[in-house]
């Protein structure tokens, strides 16, 4: 069609006529105005012209981005880790793990600590294999299969530079620490480790290390100064083991030698709760990369205990001016605490009972006279009475509750003897705690038929180890008599089914520690705990105070508001005898 329009004449397709179409250019089309057909001579009337617009307006174009843009990619490179070194030749190797990795099921993973904020570092932890796979990779086996919560404890410790493992006693804190140390040593992350523990537990730790990490070389730091200097300097010994007293003595030597550790582990770390103590200052002064504290009682008496502990773990993290709730929030990511009832549902039950002991007539009379005399003396002293005077009276009365100082009569001993007969008859074992070595000695004498053995601070380490060995291995020794001071921590006596608290300690946490020597992992049956309590005596009154103290630790650790102190205060001591508190003492 031309722009100016034209007429087109065409033939009918069938060749029987013609038609004419006239156009009017691009803008209009005129339909046929004349159409004749020769075929059958029919003339069709021309239709009226119809004008139709044909201009095509360009449509609006909408572009759709159908190709999604290339996404931005974030990359993190971790480097090829060193191949785990083989165990040291000549050292025994713990059993290897099963040959096939676990498929499915719950895996224990290492999560990034809260204070790790750099994405690369967080991804590094998140992308590590689960603990089972890591242990397999390092070819590390265990003498006994760890509980899932113990693997979780390791997953907690491994990524942390500041950590407090505050599991209840008996849950295997040392095993979790040793297994974590193994992984860090084998991976090359911590080739220099120092473990510090109470003196009485050094041999226990050495045994545990040999049991759970037989391939690790361990140097026990002891002996005279020259020997210790040599031991501190020993190269190629990944783990050094020292007691707190040695560390305090060698503080300057360690500094002089310029020793630095990749990891320092404190066992029974409540030892450093006093910030101003030499022990605290000695451990705080150690040059170290990681600081781990193991304690079943991070808070024994007041929240200040935790402040002292964190002077080592993470200095500056908390202060003694913080309210308990804020303190709990600040330490939350650094503390892991599990209790037996939460994690060991399959553990044998612990049966607690209070044995109400009625003093015999003579013992009662001796007690009555001593109390009356003591109270009258204190009252007579008036403002001159000190907490020391009250304390002396308490101790004296408690001793009378154990044994009548005049006649040697002991209602508690009678009850204990009766109980032990049953224990012995059933072929089981019992441990008995007292706060006095003198009481233990008298008990040993009286309980000779049961093969009673002693274990207290008045004995040499060798003698104590021998007592433990005999108690464990010899059937004729049914009873072990322990002092709270020496026997409440670190010992594994899970083969004992009975615990007797012949007298009560001042702090419930210590009593729990003592009980957990028997009620711990590996316990083969229910553990029965008997607390002897002489009725209508000072023991009952102290028991009431102790009950009120019991919840303090949990209050802080669960970030709840709670009392800031649970120690037996001067006021509480005076009130045991319903005495007014002298003004200067209370202040």
């Amino acid at each position, binding site marked *: 069609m031309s722009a100016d329009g034209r007429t087109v004449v065409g033939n009918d397709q069938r060749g029987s006529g013609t038609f004419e179409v006239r156009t009017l250019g691009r803008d209009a089309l005129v339909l046929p105005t004349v159409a004749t057909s020769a075929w059958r001579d029919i003339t069709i009337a021309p239709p009226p012209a119809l004008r139709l617009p044909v201009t095509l307006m360009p449509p609006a174009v909408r572009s*759709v*981005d*159908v*190709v*999604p*843009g*290339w*996404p*931005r*990619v*974030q*990359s*993190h*490179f*971790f*480097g*090829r*880790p060193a*191949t785990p070194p083989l165990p040291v030749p000549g050292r025994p190797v713990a059993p290897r793990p099963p*040959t*096939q*990795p*676990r*498929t*499915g099921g719950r*895996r224990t*993973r290492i999560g990034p600590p809260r204070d790790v904020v750099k*994405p690369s570092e*967080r*991804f*590094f932890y*998140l*992308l*590590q*294999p*689960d603990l089972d*796979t890591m242990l*397999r*990779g390092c070819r590390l086996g265990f003498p006994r299969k760890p509980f899932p919560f113990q693997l979780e404890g390791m997953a907690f410790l491994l990524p942390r530079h500041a950590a407090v493992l505050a599991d209840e006693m008996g849950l295997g804190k040392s095993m979790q620490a040793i297994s974590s140390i193994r992984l860090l040593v084998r991976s090359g992350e911590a080739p220099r480790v120092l473990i510090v523990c109470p003196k009485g537990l050094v041999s226990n730790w050495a045994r545990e290390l040999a049991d759970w990490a037989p391939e690790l070389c361990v140097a026990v730091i002891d002996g005279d100064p020259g020997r210790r200097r040599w031991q501190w300097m020993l190269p190629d010994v990944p783990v050094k083991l020292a007691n707190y007293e040695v560390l305090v003595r060698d503080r300057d030597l360690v500094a002089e030698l310029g020793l630095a550790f990749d990891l320092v582990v404190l066992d029974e770390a409540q030892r450093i709760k006093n910030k101003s103590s030499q022990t605290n200052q000695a451990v705080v002064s150690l040059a170290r990369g990681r600081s781990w504290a193991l304690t079943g009682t991070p808070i024994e008496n007041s929240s200040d205990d935790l402040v002292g502990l964190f002077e080592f773990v993470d200095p500056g993290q908390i202060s003694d001016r913080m309210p308990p709730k804020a303190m709990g929030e600040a330490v939350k990511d650094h503390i892991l605490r599990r209790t037996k009832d939460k994690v060991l549902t399959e553990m044998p039950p612990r049966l607690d009972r209070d044995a109400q002991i009625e003093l015999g007539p003579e013992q009662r009379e001796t007690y009555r006279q001593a109390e009356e005399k003591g109270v009258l003396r204190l009252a007579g002293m008036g403002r001159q009475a000190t907490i020391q005077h009250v304390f002396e009276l308490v101790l004296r009365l408690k001793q009378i509750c154990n044994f009548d100082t005049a006649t040697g009569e002991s209602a508690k001993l009678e009850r204990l003897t009766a109980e032990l007969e049953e224990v012995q008859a059933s072929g089981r074992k019992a441990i008995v705690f007292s706060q006095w070595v003198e009481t233990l000695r008298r008990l040993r004498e009286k309980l000779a038929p049961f093969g009673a053995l002693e274990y207290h601070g008045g004995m040499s380490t060798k003698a104590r180890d021998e007592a433990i060995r005999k108690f464990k291995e010899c059937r004729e020794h049914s009873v072990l008599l322990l002092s709270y001071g020496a026997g409440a921590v670190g010992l594994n006596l899970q083969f004992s089914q009975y615990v007797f608290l012949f007298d009560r300690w001042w702090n419930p946490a210590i009593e729990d520690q003592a009980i957990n020597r028997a009620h711990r992992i590996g316990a083969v049956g229910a553990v029965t705990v008997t607390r002897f309590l002489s009725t209508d005596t000072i023991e009952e009154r102290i028991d009431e105070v102790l009950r009120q103290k019991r919840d303090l630790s949990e209050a802080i650790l669960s970030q709840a508001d709670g009392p800031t102190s649970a120690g037996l205060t001067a006021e509480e001591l005076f009130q045991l005898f319903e005495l007014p508190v002298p003004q200067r003492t209370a202040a």
Partner: protein
Amino acid sequence: MQQQADGDPAGLSFGFLTTLESPVHGLFGGYLVVDSLGRPLEFHCTAPVKISRAQQILYGASLDSHLHGQQVGGALLAEAKAAAVVILTDSEQMLHVRPHTSLSVALVRREDVSGRGLGVEEFSLGGAIVRPHADDVSRSADLATWLATLASAVDLCEPFERIRAALDEATRL
């Protein structure tokens, strides 16, 4: 990127490629390269890709191939430095990455508890079933040998859990 296949089996690297669909952010891709003990060597993740309704309509059946294979998978592999002997994925769509890489690709899935047998070209390794991409079927024997090294240390389905945990973290960062 050169595929490594010779030498010490302990020096081999393995790639794990998967995606995480977030209803809020879109599709995240993650690529983890591990050593023969399953320890991480590299990790790459994409920013989320959100697909519009129009794109879904216009790409139709080819969307998966383009999005997973080229856009996400291709972008991730382009950033990798370590040469994996094989890239494992737990997502059928991710097999579309094969035309965009010279590396072998295989789909891995947990062994069927119902006892469903192995499909053609599939092989089983430590509780996981591996199906090489059609282009890599001829290398099945090699793949089985290399992956057996890894499977002796790691459950082959496990690294995907790590990637998802990391992608989950990435959504929060």
